[in-house]
């Protein structure tokens, strides 16, 4: 899957904007909404399947590391400029976990997506007790996106997944 895509301008209005409490119980419903939205809007079942993977894995990471404070709501945005699709998830990680989240996302471009996915399977097999970073590798390979992460002034972290439509 090609992932050579440019980010969409910040001024571009989102097609979807959702804000919700960081609860695991919401992920299934939001993932399936994202699948339905992408299939209905863009008419491509292949993109709908990619959206499922990206939304599931980004939200899982955000919920796992989220602070429990009242400001810790998650935001999901879906944007498109006609050529590119972008999924953004903004979260407020617990201070103790912010570094873990950043380090999980660091160095993700060192390998091409397929090689990184195979390497993640190898890690999962060799070290069953350790994090294999399978979710991140899967988003890049199966989801066909590149990932970037931005720390914002409020302490929030924004993960952006960008790929071709």
């Amino acid at each position: 899957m090609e992932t050579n895509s440019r980010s969409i301008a910040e001024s571009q209005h989102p097609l979807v904007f959702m804000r919700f409490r960081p609860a695991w119980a919401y992920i299934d419903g939001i993932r399936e909404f994202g699948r339905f939205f992408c299939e209905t809007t863009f008419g491509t079942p292949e993109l709908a399947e990619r959206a499922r993977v990206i939304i599931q894995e980004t939200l899982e990471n955000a919920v796992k590391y989220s602070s429990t404070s009242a400001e810790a709501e998650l935001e999901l945005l879906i944007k498109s400029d006609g050529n590119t699709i972008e999924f953004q998830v903004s979260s407020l990680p617990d201070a103790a976990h912010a570094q873990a989240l950043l380090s999980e996302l660091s160095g993700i471009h060192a390998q091409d997506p397929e090689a990184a996915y195979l390497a993640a399977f190898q890690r999962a097999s060799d070290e069953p007790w350790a994090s294999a970073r399978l979710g991140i590798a899967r988003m890049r390979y199966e989801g066909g996106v590149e990932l970037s992460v931005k720390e914002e002034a409020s302490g929030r972290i924004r993960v952006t997944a960008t790929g071709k439509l």
Partner: protein
Amino acid sequence: MSMNTIAVPKLDSVNVELVDPDTVKLKGTITKKEPAQDLDAFFKAVHREAVASRTPQVNVDVSELTFVNSSDIRLFVDWATWVKNESTHRYKLRFLTSRHITWQKTSFTALKSLMDGILSFDSSD
């Protein structure tokens, strides 16, 4: 192989069935927060029984398992690893997949490349 004595877990989003003496069928989705312990225990029990009864092949029908999160994809990695590391009897682990379900194509292709000779997968459609 006699899997009749193995307790089949009852789960919310996924239906687990023993459809014939050496076939497990999974239908639905698996998106648990931690790799599903009940499914892990079930797969381990099937593995132990297959080794004990020297079963040549265990079939896992995932053709209607429409979505699995990455934490739970590890359940299949673990199962294949148990077979790979088995010293007394190494059986074949065969997955029956659907070519219309993307996660199955990408994940089982990756897993097969690491577990060639142990794991195989075929499409049911």
